[in-house]
């Protein structure tokens, strides 16, 4: 054995283990934080020290004490004045009748507030003390309180030093000893793992229009969070708090962060992902009505089947574009009827365009509702631009015709020119879409060089026009338009059915209607409902014909939403192009079954949930979207513009109305058909000739009288006559003749002399009437 050494090594200088004098034994179930009394007590040491200092100071330096006291009082009063609401209010002009006032009620039990929303009564409850086992939780509180009440929950939390709880009677002894045995770091870590130590204060304020409902509120709160420490706050205290904008109090009890999280403060990032198999736990559950919304039903809690406040769409939701999808047509019809009725009652105008003839019954929703069917009552004239600038209209029309031509017409320049010429004419129809002649006659009988034949694309375009003008589309698209869309938009309620029996023709009809509608001026009071729009559908991702349509569809949707409120009703939202869906900001979805449809609806309804934080793998739960598969009839999911997720609603019953008789509908409809197609366009105090020819009216009259006598006259004869009448060789004869021809006062024709064709002019009926008008004006002027 060596000297100074130990077989176990050198001894430590100090035994790291504490020497225990005697054996002790504790048995504890866990080291989890448990409480006996959470109350916050003031520190007596500080109290004694402060008291001692005041006593000594008073006896030793009384003037100092008095001065300090006075100074403190002055500062207090200054501060009170500075930060009081009354001082703040002095900067404002007092109105004779305040629009917001709070005061005690007669019995001085509750607070009465008058302001936006009318008179309401406020009661406040303060949790003075809590038990060691916190009863209830925020969810139960929210669900427990009737949604008719307004609710304000305030939780004031301030972090505390963990050592503050080591003083007696707060924790069980065993735990206290355990915690005392920890180092300060250990104790801090212990508390941090549990969300920290907080001093908390909790108040709940409820308000209701009915004073007598407030006791029920108190009971609801106490029932939801069954803590005996709930005390009603005095009305005066509430008033003071409102006046000083201080609703929170100092902390009254201790709690760890994790306890508070589960009990009162449910932060979004802490929301539990698993909330049941099919019940959407993160749906919006509003607790009050939204004033000004168009009512569709009531909010419903799918878990409890308890109904809530009124639910509906706001006008802003419709302005941003709304999608109505899912279910069968009868269910969507119910939604459309509810919405239409609400809109009509609110003084808005509604235009319904549907691919179903059954939709004609919507016209019965109001006494002045009218119904039109494309191809029967309604003829849409593709070359009538209806005040849309030609440069915008013609390219769109050409694009729309690609559906019928089944080919890309972007390179068909001649065709576009032909369309442009026809659109430029004021009274044209599809029959006026013609290409210039290939051969030109020469005066000496020879043949002019043959110009290039039209391209294949142009010929395809012309064939498409031929289908619309001479083929199966003629009943809907050939002829002057029977009703201008601007006229239709003025009606309070109009229903237009587009059902021609051919997908291609229907698609073109929808395109044409959309183009003309989008060209109307912006009007947020006109709500357009597209029910089953063929032109917005995308038939499968591999259909090349409809892939070409996507830019047109996107542009139409954009223009339509720009024009005003738009509702698109379709059974399968996956049939819509994603560009179209992207432009619709709100949605009402009925039951969906197809995965593709659910995928689209999930996106727009905001049903996707991220279960973890930023750096974690985002998890999308299918459980919430699966709710779409099992929704019952009469239940829908609704999302407002800007909301992150949706709310389930129970739809009201559709208004039951008898459909109007055919005769009644015809009578109403006949009043809006276009009258004379020719556009006189002249002021009542001027003659037509004066309006057309302007300063050359006298000359124009001479020409017309000449034609009346000798028609038809060749262009040459008229030119010579005009030149000799005016006495000027450089007279712009063509201008006079063009003006008269353009106004359809004279008609250009041709006559043949010796096989050579000469242009000639003759008087039209309009010209004859114009001359009579001139004669009448002159007779009035002279006599």
């Amino acid at each position, binding site marked *: 054995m060596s000297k100074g050494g130990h077989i176990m090594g050198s001894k430590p200088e100090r035994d790291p283990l504490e020497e225990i004098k005697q054996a002790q034994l504790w048995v504890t179930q866990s080291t989890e934080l448990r409480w006996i009394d959470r109350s916050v007590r003031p520190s007596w040491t500080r109290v004694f020290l402060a008291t001692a200092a005041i006593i000594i100071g008073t006896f030793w330096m009384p003037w100092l004490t008095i001065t300090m006291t006075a100074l403190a009082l002055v500062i207090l009063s200054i501060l009170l004045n500075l930060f009081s609401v009354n001082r703040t209010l002095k900067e404002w002009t007092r109105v004779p009748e305040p629009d917001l006032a709070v005061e005690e009620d007669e019995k001085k039990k509750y607070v009465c507030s008058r302001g936006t929303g009318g008179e309401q009564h406020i009661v406040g409850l303060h949790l003075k003390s809590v038990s060691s086992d916190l009863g209830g939780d925020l969810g139960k509180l929210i669900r427990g309180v009737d949604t008719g009440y307004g609710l304000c929950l305030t939780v004031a939390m301030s972090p505390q030093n963990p050592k503050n709880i080591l003083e007696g009677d707060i924790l069980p002894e065993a735990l206290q000893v355990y915690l005392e045995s920890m180092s300060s770091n250990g104790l801090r870590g212990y508390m941090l793992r549990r969300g920290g130590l907080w001093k908390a204060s909790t108040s709940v304020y409820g308000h209701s229009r009915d004073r007598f409902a407030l006791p029920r509120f108190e009971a609801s709160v106490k029932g939801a969070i069954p803590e005996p420490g709930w005390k009603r706050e005095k009305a005066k205290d509430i008033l003071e708090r409102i006046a000083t904008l201080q609703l929170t109090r100092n902390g009254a009890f201790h709690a760890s962060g994790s306890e508070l999280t589960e009990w009162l403060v449910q932060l979004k990032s802490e929301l539990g992902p698993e909330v049941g198999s099919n019940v959407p736990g993160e749906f919006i559950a509003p607790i009050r009505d939204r004033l000004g919304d168009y009512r569709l039903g009531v909010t419903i809690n799918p878990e409890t089947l308890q109904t809530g406040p009124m639910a509906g769409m706001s006008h802003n939701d419709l302005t941003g574009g709304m999608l109505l999808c899912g279910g069968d047509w009868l269910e969507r019809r119910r939604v459309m009827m509810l919405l239409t009725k609400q809109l009509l009652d609110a003084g808005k105008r509604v235009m319904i365009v549907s691919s179903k003839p059954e939709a004609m019954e919507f016209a019965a929703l109001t006494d002045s509702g009218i119904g039109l069917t494309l191809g029967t009552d309604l003829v849409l004239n593709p070359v009538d631009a209806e005040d849309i600038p030609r440069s915008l209209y013609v390219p769109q029309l050409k694009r729309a015709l690609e559906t019928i031509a089944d080919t890309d017409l972007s390179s068909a320049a001649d065709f576009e020119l032909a369309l442009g010429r026809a659109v430029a004419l004021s009274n044209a*129809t599809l029959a006026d879409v013609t290409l*210039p002649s290939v051969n030109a006659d020469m005066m000496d009988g020879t043949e002019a060089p043959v110009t290039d034949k039209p391209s294949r694309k142009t010929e395809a375009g012309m064939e498409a026009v031929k289908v619309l003008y001479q083929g199966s589309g003629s009943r809907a698209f*050939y002829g002057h338009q029977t009703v201008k869309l601007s006229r239709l938009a003025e009606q309070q309620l109009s229903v237009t059915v587009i059902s021609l029996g051919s997908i291609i023709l229907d698609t073109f009809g929808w395109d044409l209607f959309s183009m003309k509608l989008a060209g109307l001026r912006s009007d947020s009071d006109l709500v357009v409902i597209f029910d089953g729009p063929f032109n917005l559908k995308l038939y499968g991702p591999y259909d090349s014909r409809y892939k070409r349509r996507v830019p047109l569809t996107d542009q139409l949707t954009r223009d339509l939403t720009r024009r005003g409120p738009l509702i698109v009703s379709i059974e399968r939202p996956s049939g819509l192009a994603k560009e179209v869906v992207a432009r619709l900001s709100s949605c009402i979805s009925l039951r969906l079954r197809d995965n593709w449809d659910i995928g689209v609806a999930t996106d727009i309804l905001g049903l996707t949930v991220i279960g973890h934080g930023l750096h974690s793998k985002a998890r999308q739960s299918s459980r919430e979207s699966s709710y779409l598969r099992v929704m019952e009839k009469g239940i829908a999911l609704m999302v407002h513009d800007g909301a992150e997720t949706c709310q389930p609603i129970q739809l009201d019953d559709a208004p039951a109305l008898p459909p109007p008789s055919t005769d009644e509908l015809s009578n109403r409809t006949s009043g809006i058909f276009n009258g004379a197609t020719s556009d006189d366009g002249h002021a009542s105090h001027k003659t037509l000739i004066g309006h057309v020819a302007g300063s050359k009216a006298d000359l124009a009259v001479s020409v017309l009288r000449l034609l009346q006598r*000798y028609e038809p006259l060749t262009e040459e004869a008229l030119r010579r006559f005009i030149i000799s009448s005016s006495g000027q060789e450089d007279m712009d004869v063509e201008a006079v003749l063009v003006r008269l021809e353009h106004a359809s006062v004279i008609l250009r*024709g*041709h*006559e043949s*002399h010796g*096989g050579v064709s000469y242009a000639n002019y003759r008087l039209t009926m309009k010209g004859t009437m114009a001359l009579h008008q001139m004669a009448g004006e002159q007779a009035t002027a002279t006599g």
Partner: protein
Amino acid sequence: MTSAMDTPTYVKGVLAGVGLTPRGIQSKAIEAGLLEGKSIMVCSPTGSGKTLVGEMALLRGVSDIRKGIYLVPLRALATQVVSVLRERYADQGIRIEISTGDFQTDGSDLAEAQILVTTYERADSLVRHKVDWLNKIGVLVIDEVQNIGHTSRGARLESVIMRMRKLTEDLQIVALSATVGEPYMLADWLGCHLVESDVRPVPLTCKLVPTTDREKTVQQLVMATVQADGQVIVFHRTRRETEAEANRLKDSVGRQLRTKERTTLDREMDSLENWNVTIPTEMRPLLHDGVAYHHAGLGARTRRLVETMFGRGLLRVVCATTTLAAGMDLPARTVVLTSARSPQHHRRFLPANQVHQMLGRAGRPGKDVRGFGVILTGSQGEARMLTKEYFASEVNPDTGTPVLTPNYEPVTSELGTSTNLTEQLLVALDFLGAASLEEVEQEYLGESYLFHCGRWLTNTPMRIVQLGEVTALAAIERHANPNMVRSARENILGTVKIRERGDTVIGGIVSVLRSGQQTCRFSARMTSDGTLEGPMCSCGSPMTKHGFLCNHLVALGMAASSELTQLANFVIPLALSETSPSGLLIRLGLLEGGEGDKLRPTTLGRTVNRLYLKISTFKEMMALIPTIESNIVLMSVLRHLVSLETGQKQGETFDTLIASVASTNLSMREMARLANLAVGDVKALLDKSRSLLYSIVAVADRGNMERVSEMVHDLLSIIDSRLHHMESENNDSD
């Protein structure tokens, strides 16, 4: 008066005196009673001796101390006929006169002529003037009577025949016609016994050749014939093409000529006979190579020289226009028609009868075993179409090859068009004195060929003529058969929805039970190339070539006429190119109301009628005469009217020409050179200008526009005297 028995003897004796013996078709005509005063219509191919039949009839008239009139279509033909007649019969003491121009003269200076050779228009003008010797006419010979079907001239010819028959009860009509379809129809109307013969002196083979290189094909055909010692006539659409073709062929054909032939050609050109013929400079080298062109731009003497040289075999190739085809009586071995399209309208094809008349010249009697007629087409499709249009194809049983036999069209009347009816209504009322429209329609027009065709043919419209106001209904009835109109009235044709009602357009959809729907339209607008849009239907055939509307358009028209009355009455007649003859004449002041519901011509109307002005030209004249305030304006008005009358747009060269006539002593040849025009054209322009100036004076006098009348009279007298002087110098008596 020579007895009936003596007349045939007299005629045969005269013929024998000039070495002619009737044969073939001539004998048949005699057998049919030609020399007994019976009216005969001879229908046979070119070169079968029809002209002699006419001559025999004229001789018969002379023997009966009755005047005879020989009507020919062209001035050139008249000159030719007169020279032949004079050559043959002048020695017999028969006075033969010719009158082809000067429509404003009344022809009283022709009273002494026993035989008068004149054009259709001049004869018409003489009848309008009601010259007093008309009732002395006993024989009317009409050459190329198939011209009754001519679009612009046929109505006038028909009208002449109608009036002459009314003037003379026992008028003998001898109609000479080229081969046409259904000639008995025309013969029946004329009251003639039909003598028909389709025997050609030389058999004809016709062929259609599709080609993309016409020039090369023409060259091949020409050279194949010329190298085999044959002659070729090549017909072209325009004058320019004839000259260009002649220049192209010159070298190749010239190489085929022997020195001896060239010498003969040159000698002929410079011979004494032709000392007064002005051969254009550019034509001389062509003639030297045996090629020539032939069109109306050449002087008459030059044309005659070409014809003579070709007839004698000196020239191998002649390039001619289709317009003058009727005026050339020259057979050749091969006839090539470079284009079957009409010179006036390149979209239309020549009428079948005209084509066969041209091709019928193929095969020289006594020289060729067979004649060849060739039509060049641009494509196989066109060849097939023209084969169907012009020929009947049969398979030769021996060779198995298809044989084309000409398909002749029947001659139909052109009197029913709005333009012709307008003119003929004035003519009729001037002839009758005063009559109601019903009387004109039933009594006057009822004897027309138009009505005769209506009775013969099955596809006759419900309304043959419309003299009064043309409503939509009347216009539809003019273009639909009675059954269709009746069906439309009973709504059997289908239901109609009118979809388009513009100022100048009426359109709609006609739904036919079990046949779907058609989109139809009547449009009075003009297309970009200057033609009327007219009626259109999605059935693809809005109007047949006979002018009948499809049943959809008839239904639309009837519906529009009842729903849109006023608008339809404006648009539909315009779309169908129907105007009211009486309305136009009344508006122009040419007709006025008489007793009861009769109409009669005004003094102005009678003047216009005798001036032989087209109503459309007169209309322009009436509008412009009040504006004539200076010579410059007068020139421009004259230029415009001449353009209308001649069918050729006149430029400033016209003004230069008139100015040089009025102020210089240049010869016509020099003026033509200065104006860069053909001599023939200059002559025609001056003639036309003179007649128009005369008309302006007459109308201005009627309208008491003295200043205008004086101004125009001055110019007229200058031009008139210069023209007389030139005519007497050149002795261009065409």
